[in-house]
């Protein structure tokens, strides 16, 4: 095991070195004097000198890098230039939990939705369900996240009555369709398919009525921290729309990928023999086919979590959430370089570590890679 992990970790060190160097050199890319870029043309020489000292611009480049990296490794990412001044580490500590919560929730939601959808569409390959969900996935993948967020805001926040009634109609039509299907299931006795559809119809009906009844007013902006004392419900109300936007794209990507892998697995001989033994379809799908098909999903889910941490920038800006992305993007226009550098360094490091973690998990799950035969 160690033999497969050690080279990956060793490989990480030069990459992290380049990441830190790249982030550090950002300041060198700034045309002219960064201190003047921050203060503006009207600044007095004394003010410029103070900011230059704070950015360390009075020392040679190599010295500055070594000092900066040493501070960063020990948890000191510098101090923001803007008033009120605070350390970047403090800012990161306030912002990171929000971003992490959004990313983890979005990933969980997307996996919970994508796996059953993939199993269904793979089993029903080529049918209407499969084609409709394929077309839907293509649409969602082409939808830029900020546009998706604004569409959801337009309907959920500004036209809640319309949205509420649309959902009621969809839920009732779905219930009716399930009922019709259960009647069509043939015969007079209560067969398992019929019972399942009946239960499904009942659950859908109950859920629709419950959602219609309890439909909250969704906030346009803001966030309620889990630690703020307002409780989990308030937190959910604020995270629902952002998580929905983030999860949408991931569901489309995950479900199509897992579907392709599942279709390949379902054509294998061991599935045929399981089917010949009379094992019910849902057990074949969940117990026999899912595990060997899930390797590329795991890779993608890990990459997805990294992408979500980076991709919350837009969502945080639209929904007014003070997370990592907004911290970086919001301070670009004010030229507050320490915050941008610190934020980018932290995000990139988390991203790299996550990818390493996925690599290790992957080799742990697939015995062929674990034994080094691939």
């Amino acid at each position, binding site marked *: 095991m160690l033999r497969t992990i050690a080279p990956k970790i060793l*490989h990480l060190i*030069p*990459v*992290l070195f*380049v*990441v830190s160097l*790249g*982030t550090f050199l*950002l*300041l*060198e*890319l*700034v*045309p002219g004097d960064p201190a003047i870029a921050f203060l503006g043309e009207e600044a007095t020489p004394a003010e410029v000198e103070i900011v230059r000292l704070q950015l360390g611009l009075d020392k040679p480049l190599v010295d500055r890098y070594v000092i900066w990296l040493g501070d960063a490794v020990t948890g000191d990412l510098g101090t923001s230039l803007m008033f009120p001044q605070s350390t970047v580490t403090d800012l990161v500590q306030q912002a990171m939990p929000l971003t992490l919560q959004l990313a983890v929730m979005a990933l969980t939601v997307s996996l919970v939705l994508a796996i059953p959808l993939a199993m269904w569409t793979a089993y029903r390959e080529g049918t209407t369900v499969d084609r409709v969900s394929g077309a839907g996935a*293509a*649409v969602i*993948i*082409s*939808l*830029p*996240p*900020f*546009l998706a967020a*604004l*569409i959801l*805001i*337009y309907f959920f926040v*500004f036209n809640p009555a319309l949205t509420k009634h649309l959902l009621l109609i969809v839920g009732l039509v779905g219930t009716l369709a399930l009922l019709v299907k259960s009647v069509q299931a043939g015969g007079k006795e209560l067969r398992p398919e019929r019972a399942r559809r009946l239960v499904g119809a009942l659950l859908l009906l109950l859920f629709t009525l419950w959602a219609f009844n309890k439909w909250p007013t969704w906030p346009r902006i803001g966030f309620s921290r889990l630690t703020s004392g307002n409780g989990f419900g308030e937190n959910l109300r604020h995270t629902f729309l952002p998580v929905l936007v983030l999860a949408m794209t991931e569901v489309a990507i995950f479900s199509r990928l897992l579907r392709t892998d599942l279709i390949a697995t379902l054509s294998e001989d061991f599935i045929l023999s399981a089917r010949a033994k009379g094992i019910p379809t849902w057990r074949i799908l969940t117990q026999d086919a899912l595990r060997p098909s899930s390797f590329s999903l795991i890779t993608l889910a890990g990459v997805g979590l*990294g*992408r979500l*941490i*980076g*991709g919350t*920038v*837009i969502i945080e*800006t*639209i929904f007014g959430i003070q997370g990592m*992305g907004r911290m*970086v*993007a919001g301070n*670009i*226009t004010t*030229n507050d*370089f320490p915050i*941008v550098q610190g934020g*980018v360094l932290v*995000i*990139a490091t988390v*991203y*790299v570590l996550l*990818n390493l973690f996925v690599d290790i998990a992957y080799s742990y799950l697939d015995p062929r890679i674990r034994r080094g035969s691939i």
Partner: protein
Amino acid sequence: MEASDSHPPQGTRALGGRAVRLGRHVANHNAVILLLPLGLGIILIGAVDSSLSDQLRWLMALVGWAAAFLGFRAIGRLNWGNDFDPGLWLAVGWVAIVVLAAVFADILPLAEAVDTVKALTEPSRKRPELFSRHPLGTDNQGLDILGGVIYGARISLQVSLLAVTVGIIVGGIAGTVAGYFRGIPDMIFGFITDSLLAFPPLVLLLAVVAAINPTVWTISLALALLGIPTMGRLARANTLTFAQREFVLAARSLGASRRRIIFRELIPNVVRPLLSYAFLIVALLIVAEASLSFLNVGISRPTPTWGNMIAAGQEKVKDHPHMVFVPGIVMFVTVYSINRIGDAARQRWDPREASL
């Protein structure tokens, strides 16, 4: 609904008894073809007649589109057989319109879309109304949205095409060299691409635009940083397979130099899968550019881009949704069309996809 699905496949034309079958075939298609003008008529009436209620106009647009699509598909199938993919050709048509509009933006009869001073007399936040001075409405400053969308298309296309070209040239050459020589060049190549891919894409872009002054050229180069590692890895992977092939061995045994093998034997083969992926990258880069403009760190007013138009409208999305959704829909349809064309291109030209 899908009358044509019940038809015998095209092959039956050659079989006996075709007169009857073919006759019904044509008759059915003729009926469906009528849906095209009918659908377009419904869309037009819904778009022009402002006395109808909003809900009815939306419904008419939806029904009209569905009818027109079915009619278009029937015409296509009649002429080019059942393999005709109407969605793909609609996508090609849309991209062609966007490109033409962007190229000829300066000579199109558009109302003022760039200079707020010249638009002082125009009504602001006017609703879209076809056959008026502002077919797609105006924004906060009375600037024409149709004009903004077309000039925005110009920026989007310029930036993304420039970035993808740089990506193909730099990434393609680096990847081919790394894949052919292996060893140290390959290690350096892997190291650089790994480092570039170590940043989440949007965060890398944010980091770069934090330091530069955003113009069309600098944003293109920043976006090229996203394209280079992807294109490079693709080129390397393809080179690895092509380098094993007989024609490379033949060239080498004829005494061809390494430079000749790379530029005359490998690159012509590698460039084809790269080009088929270029569409998908262009679609991604259009979204990335718009995201930067939307976050107010990319190209900003007075130059209109899809991203900064949507950002300007988002405050008023409740009462004036057209300011967000007109540029939004144009952008979405463009990205979707390019993705669609890219999928078709990949299935045709990428050897790895084709072998599946």
